């Protein structure tokens, strides 16, 4: 099971890295489906996207916001994962064993 989980994580990371390397090689491609599908088809029918209310999509500001959001999300996920999967403390062990 451990090997299977590790293999799964490895495959996902490998998949992402392969995709990234291809993406980096061709900067013109890789638009999101919001642009290539949603906004494109909407525009054909006379609907265009507006700027967001809080426009963080300015220069490198969006990079910063995504970094902060991703970091907080990652820490929250890690913290809760540890609570769920961590071994019981010595006190808890003592309680259960009497």
């Amino acid at each position: 099971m451990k090997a299977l989980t590790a293999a799964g994580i490895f495959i996902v990371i490998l998949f992402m890295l392969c995709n990234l390397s291809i993406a980096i090689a061709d900067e013109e491609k890789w638009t999101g489906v919001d642009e290539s599908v949603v906004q494109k088809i909407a525009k054909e029918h006379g609907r265009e996207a507006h700027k967001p209310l809080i426009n963080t999509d300015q220069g490198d500001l969006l990079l910063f916001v995504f970094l902060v959001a991703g970091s907080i999300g990652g820490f929250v996920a890690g913290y809760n994962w540890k609570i769920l999967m961590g071994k019981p403390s010595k006190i808890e062990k003592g309680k259960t064993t009497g």
Partner: protein
Amino acid sequence: MAGRKEDEVNQGAILRAFLPWGFFYFKEKIIMKSKKPASNSNLNRLALLGVVLLLLPARNAYAMHISEGILPLNWCVLWFAAAAPFVAYGLYRLKKISSTDLSFKPLVGLMAAMVFIISCMPIPVPTAGTCSHPCGTGMSAILLGPPISILITAAALLIQALFLSHGGLSTWGANIVSMGVMGSFAGYGTFKSLRTLRVNMAVAGFFAGLFADWATYLGTSIMLAAGIKGADPFMPIFIKIVISFIPTQLPLGILEGAMTAGVVVLLAKRRPDLLIKMRVIKAGEAAI
């Protein structure tokens, strides 16, 4: 992401956010679990993972929810009205379960963080030459039930719309219905149906993730076609949108299926008590 040709989202930064989680996981596996000094090979693997994530180059990435201004106001109001009861019921369920069971909160926290990260993580799909993201709602619906899954999706979408220029406030209701409601119910329904037919948990988890992803984009297609069609017939536009989504979402759905199966099986192995409590599995099924 609204009104921009080059959406600059640092994919490396998002991936780096997984580092703390990876650290906790490997720390527990290597140091706490083994009760002996970590072997060189394990440390090497940990170091390799860290280096790979840290060295990922910053590059532009792209987001996928329905952007601000795409849908007309009347459709936005309709989707808000459709989403509101689900979100309210999710809030009610969360309060009710949390008041009686404190151990439920970490699972909600974990799933909320995962749905947030996963749904703003663009993945390039070489077969299509485009990027899109998984949703994570199949996974959260299996583990928490659809109402709470919808609630955490709504929270994730709100943060993304407010601060990440990802989706939109006017299209928040529509995005909740497509990703939260349709994704969660499709994933949950698939998982429960397959488990009733005694299908293996990993396979059931895989198809739950797959159909949750596809249902989300089916929902987006319906909303978009209905909102932009004007006087034109619905079906040709709907079919056009669905066909346009297929090259990207077909492989991405498979990835989401694998991810969902992995998390469900892992939790079933490590914390079967939690899954029994959440009625994901029965007591007799603890050993899969």
